[in-house]
């Protein structure tokens, strides 16, 4: 196992000496602790947070997203014009941007990267995020034309995501299947140095980087090295931060956050604009959960407030709406349809719908017993499912938990075998969330509910093509209200972004894009 110079210094000298000898800490290496690795680092092919969080640092996108999750900032594009009909975007690209290998980056590279993202050969699961593209071409070295078949109000938000990260064509073609595995030539604030899968990813500072988003000020990264270190065990991550084996992490278990806050050498910062919702979805065409009354009763029966307090130590907020109230285009009408904890009402709803207790204490109707099978991730989700199971048992629903390891569950979740499933997801806006889950074209995955509704599809298409903010907000709002009324999900909690870091680091402002709390890594710096 490699130990960073910084860590070695600390371990070797002990805390007292290290404080009195700040000069030794000159090799500025930040060790970021995280839970799991990605299987590769190819922007359009990777949809997991574990891939995006590193890609944001190694590469750049056309535009950036501010911490407020609303404002679009320039990144590779210094400015852009949108045509009257909302179909053509013209991006003016910054000059002087260089790849890590020193080669200048031009609009041609951006066009290549975006066309690669949406190319049918790559089969990217997130190609739809780029919109209904007519063509993306470089008009000259510093002008890019992005033409759509229909207006797409979400475009800039989607272009800020890691999927459109600019890659180097030569690099992609030279490495072939090993692209993003043995190397990655990007334009980001950090460059690929080495990757030891499931152990650590080492990035070095990109010298001369000065095209970062305005919110981070000018200039290159303030540290020489970033090490993304995998520490799968929750408690170990907490201890690693406490003992100085890591410098920063947003993967601290909820149970450890209180302890970390009380430590004099650790700072924990929080952002509520995180837009990350954990929910349990229902396959709405399966016997039992196909009955809206059953889904409503399940929503009534599960005490999410108690779960947030007891299992997550009040570090999360219980969720009742499918997207956070702070998200762009949230429909306030939904507030009247949120289903809160009321077990007595749950029993009443079930009995009114004809679900009666059988001899085993499980509800039954027309030969169907309420024993829905839930496919869940192991770890925290298995615990969440257990709490849900216990609550449901109290109203006569005998949920069966089937946990799967993260390596096999994605395949299992694309099947029609289960009645319920667990999932957490990051989003930038209401539209982002709804497009991902409720378009009929996204069946069987990620639309694992089999929500197949022409009206929803039409509203989503209208909203995406809307040329005014009001029209878009009203269409998305209608969809949100519709699915919320149908109770196709059981929202569990909204997760705020909490970043814990050692005190000798400069203050960190958590970002929330796709759950990547450190975003470009440009604010990482040591004070000593």
């Amino acid at each position, binding site marked *: 196992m490699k130990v960073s110079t910084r860590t070695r210094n600390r371990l070797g000298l002990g805390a007292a000496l290290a404080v009195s000898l700040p000069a030794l800490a000159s090799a500025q290496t930040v060790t970021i602790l995280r839970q799991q690795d990605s299987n590769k680092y190819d922007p359009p092919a990777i949809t997991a947070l574990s891939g995006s969080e590193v890609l944001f640092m190694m590469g750049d996108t056309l535009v950036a997203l501010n911490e407020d999750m609303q404002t679009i900032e320039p990144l590779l594009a210094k400015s852009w014009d949108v045509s009257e009909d909302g179909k053509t975007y013209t991006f003016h690209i910054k000059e002087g941007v260089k790849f890590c290998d020193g080669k200048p980056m031009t609009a041609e590279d951006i066009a290549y990267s975006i066309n690669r993202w949406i190319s049918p050969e790559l089969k990217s699961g997130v190609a739809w995020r780029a919109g209904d593209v007519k063509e993306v071409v470089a008009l000259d070295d510093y002008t890019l034309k992005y033409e759509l078949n229909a207006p797409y109000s979400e475009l800039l938000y989607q272009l800020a995501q890691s999927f459109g990260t600019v890659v180097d064509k030569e690099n992609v073609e030279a490495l072939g299947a090993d692209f993003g595995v043995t190397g990655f030539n990007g334009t980001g604030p950090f460059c690929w140095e080495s990757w030891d899968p499931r152990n650590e990813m080492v990035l070095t500072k990109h010298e001369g980087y000065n095209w970062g988003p305005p919110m981070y000020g000018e200039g290159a990264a303030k540290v020489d090295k970033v090490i993304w270190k995998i520490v799968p065990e929750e408690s170990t991550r907490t201890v690693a931060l406490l003992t100085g084996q890591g410098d920063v992490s947003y993967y601290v278990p909820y149970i450890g956050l209180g302890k970390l806050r009380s430590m004099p050498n650790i700072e924990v910062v929080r952002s509520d604009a995180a837009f990350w919702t954990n929910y349990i979805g229902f396959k709405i065409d399966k016997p039992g959960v196909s009955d809206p009354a059953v889904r409503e009763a399940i929503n009534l029966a599960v005490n999410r407030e108690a779960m947030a307090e007891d299992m997550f130590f009040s570090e999360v907020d219980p969720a009742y709406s499918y997207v956070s109230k702070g998200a762009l285009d949230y429909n306030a009408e939904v507030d009247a349809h949120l289903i809160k904890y009321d077990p007595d009402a749950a029993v009443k709803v079930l009995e009114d719908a004809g679900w009666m207790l059988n001899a085993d204490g499980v509800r039954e109707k027309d030969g169907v017993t309420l024993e829905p099978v839930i496919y869940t991730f192991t770890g925290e989700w298995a615990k969440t499912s*257990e709490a849900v*199971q216990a609550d449901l*048992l109290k109203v006569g629903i005998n949920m069966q938990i089937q946990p799967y390891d993260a390596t096999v569950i994605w395949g299992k979740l694309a099947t029609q075998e289960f009645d319920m499933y667990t999932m957490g997801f990051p989003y930038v806006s209401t539209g982002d969330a709804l497009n991902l889950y409720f378009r009929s074209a996204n069946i069987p995955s990620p639309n694992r509910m089999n929500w197949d509704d022409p009206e929803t599809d039409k509203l989503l298409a209208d909203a995406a093509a809307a040329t005014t903010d009001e029209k878009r907000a009203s269409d998305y709002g209608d969809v949100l209200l519709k699915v919320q009324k149908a109770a196709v999900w059981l929202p569990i909690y909204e997760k705020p972004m909490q970043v814990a870091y050692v005190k000798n680091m400069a203050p960190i402002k958590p970002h929330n894009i796709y759950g990547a709390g450190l975003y470009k890594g440009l604010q990482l710096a040591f004070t000593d």
Partner: protein
Amino acid sequence: MTMAATETPEPKTETASAATPAAKPEDAPPPRRASWGRRLMRDRAAVAALGTLAIICLAALFAPLLATHDPYVNTRSVMTPPAWQTGGDIAYLLGTDGQGRDIFSRLLYGARLTLLIGLISVGLGGFVGSMIGLLSAFYPKIDAWLMRFMDMLLSFPAILLGLALVAVMGQGAVPVIIALAISSVPDCARIARGIASGVMKMEFIEAGRAVGLSDAALFRRYLLRNCISSIMIFISLRFGQVILIGAALSFLGLGARPPLAELGMMASQGRDFLLFAPHIAVIPSVAIFVIVLAANVAGDALRDVLDPRLQT
């Protein structure tokens, strides 16, 4: 294990017992050997181990009567420490887990499932394994084939086998039982074959053949009866190991499905609370330790008093 292959057990037939010293009544009273039960009682460690095992088994058997709470019902009092610690609650003798469930009650139900998984898999593996061992000793023609197959099985670690089975069948007690049973088969087969080949050399087998007994009768009445006690001792020794591997598989998240309580799974769930509420992981771990230790000490003691090789 290999020692067993050379032993010559005392055949429990008329002719054999006539050859023991007790056959000469005229002599001075022979130094009467104490019964095995008495000899077992003289071994204090064995008595303690057997007593512990008995108590645990009874507690597990009567779990529904002894449990103070429903082991599956969650409450709002999470991570309550054991009653004797500050902040403890006498209602929750051993405290509560991360979901507010009573650990004492879960321990009883957990021991029940853990013991059951151990018993079934050892029973299954022991039965199949000893049959294979006995048959291969009885029919030398298939001996090499069966034993090489057992060698092959022996090369599969139980944990790996469990992982593969769970990947195919999904998490649950059944794949764990199958994995543990399969992993017990080769060991039992080798031991059984060792014991049986010793017995096969005895004169009474030849005598049986000479009087024209059928293979089935010879196998059942002469071979099986003479081997069974030694095999049983080995199986009892295996029990502790199987419990331990079973708990390890559960700890890895391959065992019983939630909300069922299982000791390994309880320890695994407590792992996340290790820094803050160590009792959640420590209590089930201690329980596993005690069960395995008691099973091993008791198995050893039983072998000491029952194994014919050690009696002479």
